[in-house]
């Protein structure tokens, strides 16, 4: 029996939210998704601030939401901790009073958390005297002080200073290991904190798995963009696949039916004239945008295959690339990974 077990549906305005999710004690699951995908609503659903339309939600062996039987436990009777995105510290209370607010919070735990999150010196401050990182640490301490079995984190390290990020990750690693659900749009945060990833798009889970698995085999354009990869939906027939835009892509291995094609940006080569040589995918494209990325430049291409190429700044100079310039793009068949959709 999982600590948190959710299989059900609800709606946020017109957007239906369908979730099937289990989290064990000590496990951290990260929910990644674009804005408006329903990430925060998922947390509110578990917290009891948004009811299920159908299905059931079980926390620590207790069914807390079960619309078929007319049962929905209010938030204060669910044993969970919620760290909202805006922190929402109680402005009229000191840091120490904020951390000790929950009726289940006991002095020992409060003192331990104030110490572990380096808040002891701020104990008598008001929230408006705290920096963003400090406020985030107070919000986490406040949630953990109630000894939750499920911890809900909404963008926990958004705009955090390095020290706060370090302290928070340390406490999350050593905390009495509640089942943790983490909402984020930062793939690095998800990969470092989470055991499993869930990709949520338009209220639906489009992919679930280990961070490495999602990175190597992204199933949607969004998941691919997280890893910096190009993702194309196509219909394969043997060693050739036709994309939704009608472009033909040569594959190294034969495949059949609907597939996801994953193209690493670094494998897209750019040329001033049509390149000669081994069988590969060659097409003419237009530069839509140029984005500096560390020591490389990401060249966004328009054309039959809308992909991103990653090249060195000297190549950009040599080819004289600017927005709107025409260029030849080439990808070896062996660089195109093909996964059944």
């Amino acid at each position, binding site marked *: 029996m999982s600590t948190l077990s959710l299989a059900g549906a609800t709606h946020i305005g017109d957007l239906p939210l369908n979730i099937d999710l289990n989290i064990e004690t000590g496990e951290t699951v990260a929910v990644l998704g674009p804005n408006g995908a329903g990430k925060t609503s998922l947390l509110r659903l578990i917290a009891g601030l948004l009811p299920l339309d159908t299905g059931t939600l079980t926390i620590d062996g207790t069914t807390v939401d079960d619309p078929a039987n007319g049962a929905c436990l209010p938030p204060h009777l669910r044993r969970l901790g919620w760290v909202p995105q805006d922190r929402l510290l*109680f402005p009229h209370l000191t840091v120490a009073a904020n951390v000790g607010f929950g009726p289940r919070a006991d002095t020992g735990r409060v003192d331990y958390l104030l110490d572990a999150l380096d808040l002891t010196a701020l104990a008598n401050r008001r929230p408006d005297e705290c920096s963003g990182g400090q406020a985030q640490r107070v919000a986490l301490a406040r949630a953990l002080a109630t000894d939750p079995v499920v911890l809900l984190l909404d963008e926990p390290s958004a705009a955090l200073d390095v020290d706060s990020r370090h302290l928070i990750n340390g406490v999350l690693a050593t905390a009495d290991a509640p089942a943790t659900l983490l909402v984020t749009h930062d793939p690095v945060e998800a990969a470092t904190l989470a055991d499993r990833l869930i990709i949520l798009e338009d209220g639906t889970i489009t992919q679930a798995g280990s961070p490495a698995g999602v990175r190597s085999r992204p199933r949607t354009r969004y998941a691919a963009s997280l890893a910096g990869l190009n993702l194309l939906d196509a219909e394969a027939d043997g060693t050739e696949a036709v994309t939704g835009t009608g472009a033909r892509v040569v594959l190294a291995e034969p495949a059949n039916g609907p597939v996801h094609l994953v193209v690493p940006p670094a494998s897209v080569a750019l040329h001033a004239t049509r390149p000669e040589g081994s069988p590969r995918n060659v097409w003419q494209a237009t530069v839509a945008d140029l984005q500096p990325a560390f020591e490389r430049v990401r060249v966004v291409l328009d054309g039959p295959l809308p992909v991103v190429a990653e090249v060195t700044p000297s190549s950009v100079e040599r080819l004289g690339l600017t927005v709107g310039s025409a260029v030849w793009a080439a990808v070896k068949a062996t660089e195109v990974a093909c996964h059944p959709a």
Partner: protein
Amino acid sequence: MRRFLLVLAGLAVVLLALPIVGLLQRMPWTSLPELLGDDVTLDALRVSLVVSLAAALVVLVLGTPLAWALGRTDLPGRRIVRALVVLPMVLPPVVGGTALLFALGRRGLVGQWLERWFGLTLPFTLAGAIVAATFVALPFYVIAVEGALRSARRELDDLEEVAATLGTPPHSVLLRITLPRLLPAMAAGLALAWARALGEFGATITFAGNLPGRTQTLPLATFLALQSEPERALALSLVMLVVALAVLLPMRDRWLPGR
């Protein structure tokens, strides 16, 4: 243009300050202890304090839930109720007193049943004076608290939700989150309402009469004294001026910004 506006603004200041100067200039400072110490003054002061404090208490107990219903719920008819709340502010007090008389008087709409069933008579009693004061004072409090509730609605929703997820039951959330956040607005609104109740004249004299020691408040005593004993009227006015300043000064941060 600027000069013209400044002249008008200066005129407004004179209009506000001159009466106070006049009052203080004619004040019979030497006979003041005597005038303030006699029965008429002390009775009026006592009645005024009892009436205004009782009215403030009723305003607090009834006005807070009303402000909540208007500012925090989506009940139908809120616009109509809101207009009703403001009505005593714009209605001449004497009209309010007349209306109270026909509603709660001994032969009034509800008054006749109050008398028949409970033996309760409101007109020309201390209770009646309290009802009149409450009627005129309630809007000041409700508007202040409802405004605060509405502008802080999002924040209150958020904070109350967090408190609930921490395991706090609803009544405790109300006491530990909602009320503390509203306290400044409640205090300001209550001070205004109390000051309004203290100064109430028209509705009181119409509905509760002018019985010394029972319904004669400071404003009524002042008006009466003006016709026979102007020095007493000045002394009574000073009492009310001091009380008004005592209310205004602690609130100066709120009402006198930009010090």
